[in-house]
């Protein structure tokens, strides 16, 4: 691999260029049509949904690399996504509350001391769980750079330690899936506790208000995050395309297909798996940090094991082992889900029965999973292969 990796990626994967072009056109189109800077055809809430979808696509791409390319069916990547959201959410919530507290305390005859501000902020944030102490894990919440570092470090370190333990003892296949699911469950149960220091069941809220930009209208903030999400997806896609191409990509695909044989060839299988697992966890954390400021709220239910299974299903529907498949799966299923469950689809009156889509969407979705698994194991992405072959 003496030539520059960039060229080799594009040569191996012509789809990367296509994807970049499409993403660019899509971003431009939304920018022009949106309320923030453009014509106002697309509402701010829709921009947020689209931005959030881009983040989910990035998460799905990461999931595709770890599962579709490396063969590790992780049921914990949505937890890493949530951890990224919590890490940035802590700063958003703390900094904004501190600003509000300073405003209200400034009304007094004597300006507040730093200790008074910190105390009042903590009481404001943790009043809902009956506490007024700032837990130790909030030590860096006042600092944006520190929390940005935590967005990367917390999911990364957790994945590193967990992956090291799991791969070292050769937990593979189904067992690894169940183990990662157990990790997700433990994390969700921990976050559900009121004394976890992250407001238990209430989660973190008000994340759509960005400290330092409180006067900026939401329509503009939505655009900032939309662009950031599109950029992150573009860069992430490029990075992953580079990772899965070339020699490294060949090794991890070989691990997927026959782990023992790769080990006998002298490769450090555990090292490769650990690298992929940790890298995808970090990207998942970053995607989460971009997603939750757009969603506005994060709570432990988001981290529950079922979310990670959904993630796997998106990738399966989109088509494993091809990055654009993951993007298609995540975008199609999550957008359709929010359209149907959000009451966007018109209900159909059959006379004897009224089909309410919010009640039936999940049934259709579930049966859809079954049909895709049974009849289209390559997912929607498989259609492209078929088209290419026909040509």
């Amino acid at each position, binding site marked *: 691999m003496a030539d520059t990796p960039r060229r080799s990626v594009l040569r191996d994967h012509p789809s990367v260029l296509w994807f970049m072009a499409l993403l660019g056109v899509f971003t431009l189109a939304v920018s022009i049509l949106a309320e923030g800077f453009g014509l106002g055809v697309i509402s701010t809430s829709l921009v947020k949904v689209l931005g959030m979808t881009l983040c989910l696509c990035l998460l799905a791409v990461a999931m595709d690399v770890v599962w579709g390319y490396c063969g590790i*069916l992780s049921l914990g990547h949505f937890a890493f996504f949530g951890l990224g959201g919590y890490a940035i959410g802590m700063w958003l919530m703390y900094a904004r509350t501190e600003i509000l507290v300073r405003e209200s305390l400034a009304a*007094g*005859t*004597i*300006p*507040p*001391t*730093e*200790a*008074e501000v910190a105390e009042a902020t903590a009481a404001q944030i943790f009043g809902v769980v009956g506490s007024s102490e700032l837990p130790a894990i909030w030590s860096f919440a006042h600092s944006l750079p520190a929390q940005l570092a935590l967005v990367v470090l917390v999911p990364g370190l957790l994945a590193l330690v*967990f992956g090291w*333990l*799991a791969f*070292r*003892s*050769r*937990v593979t*296949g*189904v*067992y690894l*899936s*169940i*183990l990662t*699911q*157990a*990790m997700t*469950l*433990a994390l969700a*149960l*921990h976050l*559900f*506790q009121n*004394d976890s220091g992250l407001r238990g069941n209430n989660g973190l809220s008000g994340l759509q208000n960005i400290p330092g930009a409180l006067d900026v209208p939401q329509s503009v903030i939505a655009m900032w995050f939309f662009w950031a999400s599109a950029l992150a997806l573009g860069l992430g896609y490029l990075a992953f395309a580079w990772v899965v191409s070339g020699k490294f990509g060949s090794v991890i695909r070989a691990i997927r297909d026959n782990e023992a044989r790769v080990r006998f060839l002298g490769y450090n299988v555990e090292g490769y798996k650990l690298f992929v697992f940790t890298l995808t966890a970090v990207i998942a954390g970053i995607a989460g940090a971009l997603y939750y400021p757009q969603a506005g709220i994060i709570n432990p239910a988001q981290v529950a*094991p*079922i979310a990670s*299974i959904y993630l*796997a*299903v998106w990738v*399966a529907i989109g088509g494993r082992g091809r990055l654009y498949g993951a993007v298609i799966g995540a975008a199609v299923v999550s957008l359709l889900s929010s359209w149907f469950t959000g009451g966007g689809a018109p209900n159909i009156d059959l006379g004897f029965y009224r089909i309410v889509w919010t*009640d*039936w969407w*999940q*049934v*259709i*979705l*579930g*049966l*859809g*999973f*079954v049909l895709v*698994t*049974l009849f289209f*194991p390559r997912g929607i992405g498989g259609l492209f292969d078929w088209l290419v072959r026909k040509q």
Partner: protein
Amino acid sequence: MMPRPIRAACRWAWLLPLWLMLWLMLWAPSLSAQEAPLQQVLQGVQAEVANPSRRTVPAVLSALMDADLEATPAFLRAWSEREVVQRPEDGLFFIARDGEGRAVTLIDIDTGAEVATVTSRDVTQIRPNAGVRSEIAAALVRFELSSPDPARRIAATEAIARSPDPGQIPLLRAAIGEEPDPAIRARKERLLAILTARFGTGPERIAAIEALAGDVGTEARGVLNQILQTRSEHAPALPEGANIARVLTVGVDIDPLRAHARLAADGLVDPRPGRTAIRDALRANVEDGAVGGIPVHQLTTEDARRAAWRALEAEGRVPPLPTEAEMRAAVDAVVFFDRYQEDDPAVTDAARAALDSTRTRVGLFQALNLSLEALSLASIFFLGAIGLAITFGVMRVINMAHGEFIMMGAYTGYVVQTLIPGHTLSLAVALPLAFAVTFAAGVAMERLVIRHLYTRPLETLLATFGISIALQQLAKNIFGPQARPLTAPDWLAGAIRINDIASISTIRVAIFVMAVLFLLLLLYILNRTRLGLEVRAVTQNPGMAASMGINPDRINMLTFGLGSGIAGTAGVAIGLFAQVTSEMGANYIVQSFMTVVVGGVGSVFGTLAGAGLIGFLQKGIEWFNPANTLAAQTWMVLFIILFIQFRPRGIIALKGRAAGD
């Protein structure tokens, strides 16, 4: 001319009504001597009943006591509640029940029959004062304690236990002598010991406290703990003769600042102003945008505020800020100690000794109770996981819809219960029916979906997850989002109590029994029947099994049906104590998978071991932090993750060819 005697009679004829009245008055009591004994007794002390006073009431009560009549307690209660009235015409007593308006229904005190309805003006209400009422209440307790009906004696004893007071000690003591029933007698004696330990005096009290040693009941330990209650005090020197629990060392047992605050609260020293107090004082002394010469905008640190306080102090506008050394000196000048509220050291020593003697037994019973709870939790985990032990453990199919089979079984139980009255009968119908329904569902799922995915085990996870969410939503569409009750029969409602510490509800015992039955049944099917033999053969080597004439398709179908059916039956059991909702299966799925993996895939005993380990572990962790079940679950899952690091194949790992891979 009339004959003389007749004329005389006529002359007195106007007196006839009087005669009649006199005759009636004399005759009526003679009638009640047979039919109204209580009324007669009361008429004997009519004045004392009508105008009771503390001095006269004992005579009435002793008369009633001597008569020992059945109607007495009801009368005493009514008398004390001011519900007894007297009819002025004949002086008879009645219990009055208020009717509409001013109407009053008179009730015969002996028979309880309604006699007449009058207005409240026609009768005189008898109003005993508080002193009299307490006398009556004591007499009532005495009556009830020695009532011929054992149920009423027990009720009276428990009434004393609920609201103990020293006056009941002699009553109880007197009642013990007459008590024929040994069980009630034991209860009364124990209660007497508890009352004496609490309210008694002198050696009698100490003896009672010593008698409570070894009693693990909550009442007894409650009394002992109450005797050992302390209050925090301080004095220049330890007071002579005080019953002191312990002396507190400042800096070790008590924080110096808190010690100082306690002195300040008693007015011994000036309070040390806290941050808020300093701020408020400074706020009150702002002059021209400055406090004590320091501009307000600079007061953003503690040091600046303290300096401003000192400036105000120099002007004499605020009390001086005590220095560290002054505070320390003030604190060192006194002794802080905890003092028993009970002054007699002999009493507290006896109480402590009695409490210490129960400690081991209390610990043992707590451990027993914890074990029972853990056993019941393990049974629940086992019930949830046993179907998976077959479908996942034996067939290696990741059935994410396993939880939905549990839910389906529970809803079957609910539907049967709405159709068949009688909870016992409906349960007897529901258990086999749930098996049939989920067996059919399992077979259908195997035929339609899973059969096509045997070569792609990870993808069964996706397909069955799809089925799982579809089934959940279907159940929600059919039965609604609210929880449906699945009521246990009455004979499963109570609890088995060993003592105040250890007890277990009957339903949990039933679930344990059910788990054992399932285990035996499954072991029998797998190890002793033709089907079991074929199942084992197919799972170990389908090709070889097929060449021996076994139809693997049929066996896979039956095995999957069996696993699903068992899940459905377990669902009925789980539904009896958990709520039946469309999401109930999802709560069990992750834990069930962990149970199977921890125990060791492919072995029913492994699942048993896994369920036992997880159940005992979770209860064990909960014991350290009883308030927080979530934390216990978190730690348990973390433990399982670590455990799998060291035994990746679970507790009972299959060896050799059976292990496959």
